[in-house]
């Protein structure tokens, strides 16, 4: 599904990614763990097409497409979804209108018909219920006045509606209490299946108790320095990143 080869990228002349090699096969969930400043968020932004990063080398293919040559909206239409670490507030943009516009943009990309307001509302209500989000959130401005937990749940709601092929979850666990963490994890696990892959980026092992990954990769100083099964996350929790650094 996702193939990253020798990816290097810099921001403001400073090299952050120093040669990333990573493959996420279809249907698998991979975790990327690493300390602050290791390049985790940069990787998620580079993959989703945020401006301001200069790709200096390497390639990324997504379902056979040259991902780096695509605009952010084209990547989304092709089935890539980034759950933001810091979801952006959009005052004046109603959440329901936003969600429906996004859904219809993606559906259009997939060659599906647009949903009208009634069809959308019916679908959204079901998803809201599963994520224990109050319907009131649809009426508010996107993320405006939402608590940290509500913002993250709104991200997962979007993911549940847009049904991506590959989701990148950028520290979705940060700022969540244990109940919210379970709800969010359930939302991700519900999508698990042969057509869904995910890249779960996190600092802590905690999230991986709920979203159990197929593979765990350790990102340090812009490189993947170690890969392994889910047990690697547990090991990191016990020994810390310093031990990996020493081994690398």
């Amino acid at each position, binding site marked *: 599904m996702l193939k990253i080869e020798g990816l290097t990228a810099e921001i403001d002349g400073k090299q952050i990614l120093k040669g990333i090699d990573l493959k996420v096969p279809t249907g698998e969930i991979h975790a990327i763990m690493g300390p602050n400043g290791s390049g985790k968020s940069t990787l998620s932004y580079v993959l*989703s*097409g*945020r*401006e301001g990063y200069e790709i200096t080398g390497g390639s990324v293919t997504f379902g056979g497409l040259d991902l780096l040559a695509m*605009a*952010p*909206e084209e*990547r*989304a*239409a092709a089935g890539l*979804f*980034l759950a*933001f670490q810091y*979801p*952006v507030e*959009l*005052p*004046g*943009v109603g959440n329901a209108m*936003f969600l429906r*516009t*996004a859904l219809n*943009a*993606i559906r259009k*990309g997939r060659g599906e018909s647009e949903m009208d307001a009634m069809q959308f509302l019916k679908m959204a209500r079901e998803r809201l219920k599963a994520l224990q989000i109050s319907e009131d959130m649809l009426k508010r*401005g996107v993320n405006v006045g939402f608590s940290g937990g509500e913002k993250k749940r709104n991200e997962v709601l*979007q993911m549940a509606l*847009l049904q991506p092929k590959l989701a990148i979850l950028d520290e979705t666990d940060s700022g969540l209490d244990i109940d919210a963490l379970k709800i969010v994890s359930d939302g991700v696990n519900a999508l698990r299946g042969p057509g869904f892959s995910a890249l779960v980026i996190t600092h802590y092992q905690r999230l991986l108790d709920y979203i159990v990954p197929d593979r765990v990769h350790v990102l340090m100083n812009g490189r993947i320095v170690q890969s392994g099964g889910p047990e690697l996350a547990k090991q990191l929790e016990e020994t810390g990143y310093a031990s990996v650094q020493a081994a690398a």
Partner: protein
Amino acid sequence: MTALPTGAAGFLHRFDGLRARLPGARLPWIQALREQAADAFRAQGFPTRRVEAWKYTDLRQVADAGFEEALSVVDSAPALPPAHGSARVVFVDGRSRPDLSTLDGVAYGIESLAAALEAQEGRLGSLARPLEQPMVALNTMLFEDGLVVTVPAGVAGGVLDLVSLGTASERPEAFHPRHLIRLEAGASLTLIETATGPDGARYLHNPVFEIEIGFGATLTHARIQQEAPRAFQLATVYARVEKGGTYDNFTLNAGGKLVRNEIHTLLAGPAATCHMNGAQLLRDGQHADTTTVLDHAAPDCASRQTYKTVLMGKSRGVFQGRIHVHQVAQRTDGYQMNQALLLSPEAEIDSKPQLEIYADDVKCSHGATVGQIDADQLFYLRARGITEARARSMLVEAFLTEAVEGVQDETARAALGAAVTGWWDGQEATA
């Protein structure tokens, strides 16, 4: 055909020719008002940018145009903007057109100023200050008609549409309506004003409003300025709000070549409230100026001002907001915000807040932001599959929607919202 005299001289010349035929020419008090105003206008002329209050708005293109008086009413059925209620008064080139107006079931007084002039002694001119404001002097010197509304105590007046149409003619025309609005104790009214004209029309619309809001009365005043692309509108509003009264003004500047929306509000009684909000939507070549002068002259009053400007192409926006908190105005709660969204590197916005506070127990804040479309917001939308063009459009619309959402009256809010959306959709269609 000889060239018309331009500038102040042109208007004074016309006043000399017309003074015996203007409405009220036989009423000494009107005569005195007009002569005084003419003297003031003769002495000051059109304001220049050397005058502080006009520092950012250059009236030379208005002064340089030779204006005719509007010709006598042509009997035609001009296209009217959408009605928002059952009552509507229509003015064409500043003159009332009863044939186009509907006043069925109106439970308060509505007259045309031309017809009711004699009875306005002491009321007309009670708030306007022609000696200080040259454009108001010009209006006082040459006004022919206007709207006189009196809502009696306790009467809920509902929605009244005030429509001003400019018409196309070979030479630019000028009209100077004077509108008198009075709400007695506990009365309410929603006045929705739409000023517009056909594409080719060149005219100067120079209205003056004198608004009196009595004890506990509420006036919602939505001004939808959609003048013809080559027209000028220089409007001056004076409002006086008594104890517990509310003045809710929202001005949408969307049309015209050069426009100024100047509002003077006096919070004269305790616990009075005023909202002066607005949006300016400017395309290439347009200039719009909003100038507010707010006097907190009584204790426990609250004021809220939020103005938003969207600028495209080589357009220019101005916001000047002066708040004067008098010594007696303890526990004043004042808020002023001016926000601009620049969609073009050639656009310019000038913002000048001015606070003068003489009371010691006061909560007053003001702020100004100037920016472009937020890159993070844009990326967030695009990361959800929304095209860049659509995402930009959504963010501009959101910026504008926020301005309108503060309007309390539902009908006025819907009318303004529709005007904003219509403007932006029209922009999108031509982009």
